[in-house]
């Protein structure tokens, strides 16, 4: 277990190192920090002097170590547009994105587990067939199209729900203000979370169904039937527990995909989160903010993936054996 842990940590660090190299290369090539600082009107000699002073003429290696040192201290540069530390800008936008992801996750778990289990237990019932039919249609609709259609139906035609922004938020502490405290906040978060959930739901329903069906075929479940255990106990205690193991791994990998889809969802609903901010930063060529976003998102990816792998290693002892001698 210890060797496995070390291996995973080493891989995480290596990936973070690669991300920091890419980020640094982007920062190095995108935009000119001198022009942002002094504008066009300064003579060439003063520019050269400034370049020396800022260390822009140093070797790549020297510049990179300086960059990495700053990043480790939490200094990701200052946003050109907001005139604030880039990390602060992102941390201010982070809660909105996290609440959106949270809302979507609750919907995904709440809907996919019952539906997945039901379609596995009764694969031939009409309801199961309808669920499976809808799920393949769901996979085929891109998330932004679901979002647009929902806006068109619920905001433009029926006028039931708001189509953009976060609405009334209640300040909790620090940069975090929540949508879940007011009715208006709930109404605002409803459409975006359903849209974000819609892309993952079919995948999870199908996955839970497939795993559950496989588990129901296994020896120990047959033994449980023979023992005369109540069906509900077999389904929800014996079978479901083992079904959830692969679901956790896939779920962990999907967190990364979710981050990408938040960019799409936030753009459609103009949700003031990280993803929307990133696209605005790209349009403004706000290099420090782009780089900071890369590092923060890369960090979230690496941490969640490592944790998911470690949990999986803990829960499933067979992983260790196959991976440790690899």
């Amino acid at each position, binding site marked *: 277990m210890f060797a496995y842990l070390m291996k995973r940590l080493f*891989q995480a660090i290596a*990936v973070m190192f690669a991300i920091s190299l890419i980020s640094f290369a*982007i920062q190095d*090539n*995108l*935009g000119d920090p001198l022009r942002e600082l002094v504008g066009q009107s300064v003579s060439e000699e003063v520019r050269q002097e400034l370049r020396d002073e800022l260390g822009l003429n140093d070797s790549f290696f020297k510049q990179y170590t300086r960059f990495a040192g700053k990043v480790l201290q939490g200094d990701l540069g200052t946003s050109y547009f907001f005139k604030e530390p880039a990390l602060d800008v992102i941390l201010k936008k982070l809660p909105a994105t996290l609440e959106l992801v949270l809302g979507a996750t609750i919907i995904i778990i709440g809907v996919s587990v019952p539906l997945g289990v039901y379609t596995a237990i009764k694969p031939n019932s009409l309801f199961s067939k309808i669920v499976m039919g809808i799920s*393949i*249609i769901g*996979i*085929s*609709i*891109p*998330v*932004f*199209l679901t979002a*647009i*259609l929902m*806006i*068109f139906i619920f905001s*433009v035609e029926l006028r039931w729900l708001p*189509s953009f922004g976060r609405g009334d938020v209640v300040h909790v502490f620090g940069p975090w203000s929540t949508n879940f405290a007011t009715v208006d906040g709930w109404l605002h978060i409803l459409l975006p979370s359903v849209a974000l959930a819609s892309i993952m739901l079919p*995948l999870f329903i*199908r*996955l839970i169904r*497939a795993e559950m069906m496989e588990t129901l075929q296994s020896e120990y479940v047959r033994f449980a039937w023979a023992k005369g255990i109540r069906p509900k106990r077999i389904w929800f205690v014996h079978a479901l527990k083992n079904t959830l193991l692969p679901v956790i791994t*896939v779920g962990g*990998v999907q967190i*990364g*995909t979710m*981050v*990408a*889809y938040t*960019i*799409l969802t936030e*753009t*459609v609903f103009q949700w003031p989160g990280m993803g929307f901010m*990133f*696209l605005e930063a*790209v349009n403004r*060529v706000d*290099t420090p903010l*782009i780089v900071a976003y*890369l590092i923060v*998102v890369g960090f979230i*990816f690496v941490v969640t*993936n490592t944790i998911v792998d470690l949990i999986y290693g803990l829960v499933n002892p067979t992983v260790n054996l196959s991976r440790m001698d*690899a």
Partner: protein
Amino acid sequence: MSMMADHQGNSLFARIMNSNMAYSFKRNPVAIVSMAIFLIITLAAVFAPLIAPTDPYDPSLYDILDSELPPAWTNQGDPKFLFGTDDQGRDLWSAILYGTRTSLIIGICAVFVQAFLGISIGLISGYVGGRIDNILMRFADIQLSFSTLMVAIIFLAVSQALFGSETFNKYALFMLVGVIGIAEWPQYARTVRATVLAEKKKEYVDSARVLGFSSIRIMVRHILPNSLSPIFVISTVQVANAIISEASLSFLGLGMPVSQPSLGSLISSGFDYIFSGSWWITTIPGVVLVVLVLVINLLGDWMRDVLNPKLYKG
């Protein structure tokens, strides 16, 4: 595949008609309908220049006075424009035909890139094994943990900022094919590697090795043809995914420009007008996109059931 046909006396067509797949195809109405719709859409896309009433790439052909006309079957519709016009006065029907073409080209080419990279890496990884296998699969793990869309968004966003949107728009097609192609290779590599590991132990590989064939020949001519069915199955799903990715990227403004729209950029250009009631600019390309992806997915599902590669999940 063609080389297999060479050795047979029967014609290829007769062999296809007698195969397992054709048998199950003829008995599966969903597969038949999906295939028919897919063929219609593909043919319409291939022959777009012949079918389309106007050339959507030529701005001199559209008239701003025709802008935002609803489809022909509605009250204010103009019979000249079957599906109405967009905000520039461009005929939506022509734009959709050309857009479908662009989306299909990007989807299929991207999957070719994926398949080429993934199959080569998977073959090497599975056949050679050892340290090389380890390193390649570790890369695949890492690549998979970053979602394709995320990688594509960041890569395209940075290159757009780096090259400026004019240069970017010129090469958008190649960039989309490249980035979707490169980001998804592990899907193929893993599947191919798994089948290679199973095939490698079989006797025909041993005998080929004893005959003194080179590793490359064994990999490409002996193992690869026996690993084709899972490759077919993932290919359909991958084409569907690539089309969705392309549409999503174009929707964000990181893909095809509005002057040479794909289905995604058409949907995107109509989104601004949906609040003023011009639903058709977004909805009609959206329906085409969903139907196209849906039939490909249904065909993929059918193919998976027929070929039933056990390695494929989800």
